[in-house]
């Protein structure tokens, strides 16, 4: 598949020595997310040998793993064995003595076709065994993606959860005074690299969301004073309105198969939830209620939709079947609930809650049980899921302050500001990028 027109080949796991026996596997370093006894796992990340690029790759991998809050990256100044020697054969006592439980080694070669080949291995220091051995190949200019794929491989092996580093964020970059705020569609890698603006700020733009194939973005734009849902194609740069309706269209999201947009369509002041089939252009109304019905989000299997409605008199969260039948209210607490977003794993719904003058970001089960508030702020809104369903991104604004984007683990740990060049809001996390 194409990425900016360049074909990437990823090699399946190859290699090699010392397959872990079940007995050894019990001694393997492992991070259990959500474990109350949790301590960050000490890991040594050596610089892949064979290319000057190795240093940059090691820096990206270290930053990725450190950013999760799940790992303690051991200072390379403490390393006893040289990276080059370790990449041939680690001397495990040298790594044990500096406290490393896991070790990463790597080598880089340039293939005859000019692509680079990054081989990396993850080692169990205590067991003296290899946990991962993998080669990744791709154009040198996509070296950051190789580093993110490598990070994903390490994270997955040590946590048992899917990775989320080879992903992008689309969001709204904000500038200017509050009363004449300039908002631009912007995209960046999950770690803030490769930042670029997709729109110039002439039109107000809001609420971007990725398509499942990660190459399209649906969002709201005010063009000629008409707020409408658009789709932006990242390959072509083309922008297209989704249908033509007399009223406002807003709150768009893709269906999990990418074939539909679910959104609100406003008519005579009343907002209802519709789907539009992107191939046939046929629209179907899913709600029919004089209340506000908005912020729809599909379950990952496409069978259900969670949405926001004030039909009870206050904003609450509901779930319905994908055809609009079987509406059930799931939020049970006091306060106003909004922006439900179904986890890519299907097991949780993230939301915004307004209560007692504060905004809160939380998660609950799809039946409303096990509500858990993760963070709060003067204004905090718009959670979006990492593809592994373990991390949320959202934005937060202090009283009179600027909106900024943050990440937080669904255990409520490790709240961190995302790296955006300036003020940002309405983040949306992409699925894992396709090869």
């Amino acid at each position, binding site marked *: 598949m194409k990425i900016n027109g360049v074909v990437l080949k990823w090699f399946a796991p190859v290699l090699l020595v010392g397959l872990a026996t079940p007995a050894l596997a019990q001694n393997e370093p492992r991070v259990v997310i959500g474990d109350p006894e949790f301590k960050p796992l000490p890991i040594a990340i050596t610089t892949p040998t064979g290319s000057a690029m190795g240093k940059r790759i090691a820096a990206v991998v270290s930053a990725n793993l450190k950013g999760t809050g799940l790992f303690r990256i051991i200072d390379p100044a403490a390393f006893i064995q040289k990276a080059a020697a370790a990449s041939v054969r680690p001397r495990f006592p040298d790594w044990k003595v500096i406290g490393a439980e896991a070790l990463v080694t790597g080598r880089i070669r340039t293939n005859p076709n000019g692509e680079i080949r990054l081989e990396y291995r993850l080692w169990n220091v205590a067991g003296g065994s290899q946990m991962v051995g993998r080669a990744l190949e791709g154009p040198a200019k996509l070296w950051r993606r190789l580093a993110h794929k490598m990070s994903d491989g390490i994270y997955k092996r040590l946590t048992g959860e899917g990775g989320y580093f080879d992903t992008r964020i689309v969001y709204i970059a904000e500038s200017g005074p509050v009363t004449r705020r300039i908002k631009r569609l912007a995209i960046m890698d999950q770690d803030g690299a490769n930042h670029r603006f997709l729109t110039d700020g002439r039109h107000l733009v809001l609420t971007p969301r990725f398509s499942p194939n990660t190459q399209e973005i649906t969002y709201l734009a005010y063009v000629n004073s008409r707020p409408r849902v658009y789709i932006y194609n990242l390959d072509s740069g083309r922008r297209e309105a989704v249908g033509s309706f007399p009223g406002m269209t807003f709150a768009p999201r893709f269906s999990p198969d990418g074939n539909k947009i679910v959104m609100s369509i406003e008519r005579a002041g009343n907002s209802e939830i519709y789907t539009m089939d992107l191939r046939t252009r046929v629209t179907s109304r899913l709600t029919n209620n004089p209340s506000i019905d908005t912020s729809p989000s599909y379950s990952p299997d496409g069978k259900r939709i969670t949405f926001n409605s004030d039909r009870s008199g206050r*904003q609450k969260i509901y779930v319905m079947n994908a055809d609009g039948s079987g509406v059930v209210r799931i939020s049970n607490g006091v306060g106003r609930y909004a922006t439900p977003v179904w986890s890519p794993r299907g097991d949780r719904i993230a939301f915004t809650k307004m209560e007692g003058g504060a905004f809160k970001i939380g998660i609950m089960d799809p039946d409303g049980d096990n509500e858990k508030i993760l963070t709060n702020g003067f204004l905090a809104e718009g959670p979006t899921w990492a593809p592994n369903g373990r991390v949320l991104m959202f934005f937060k604004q202090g009283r009179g302050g600027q909106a900024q984007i943050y990440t937080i683990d669904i255990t409520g740990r490790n709240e961190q500001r995302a790296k955006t060049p300036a003020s940002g809001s309405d983040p949306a996390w992409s699925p894992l990028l396709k090869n």
Partner: protein
Amino acid sequence: MKYVKLIAVLVFAAGLGACSSVDKKTDGAGSKGGSGAGNGSRPAATASWSDYTSKTKNGYSDRVFFSYDRHELSAEARQTIEAWSRWLRAHPDATILVEGHTDERGTREYNLALGARRATAVKNYLTALGTSGRRLRTISYGKERPSVAGSTERSWSENRRGVARPRGGGS
């Protein structure tokens, strides 16, 4: 029934005429202060929109205000809209874009929907007063375009608004 009630309000407002304070700028939260009492007899016939809604002349506002998370029109808001209606009658070629706005205390998408409700409430009253719906268009900005910065009760109350933007008719 509702329509009859609206007409009654209109007649009441008109009957008070020149010597009352009803025609003056009505919403205490607004920035366009009311100094025009007694000058409101038939301003619509000749006045341009900017004259009509200026602070210093007739004292009508170009905006109406709403309670938190509500879209019902207050009595004050209806008086302001009745003045717009008279202006529209005096300027039959003019159209009005009605903007609906919210304060910052709400989620973005819900506030877009709430702004649409507010703009529509204004539009519906104008049509009830006799303006053709074809001359009125609504747009919701949700919380995207506050008229004043700040996170206080006062700024919130000024930002929860419906604003009339006229096109044509000497605006």
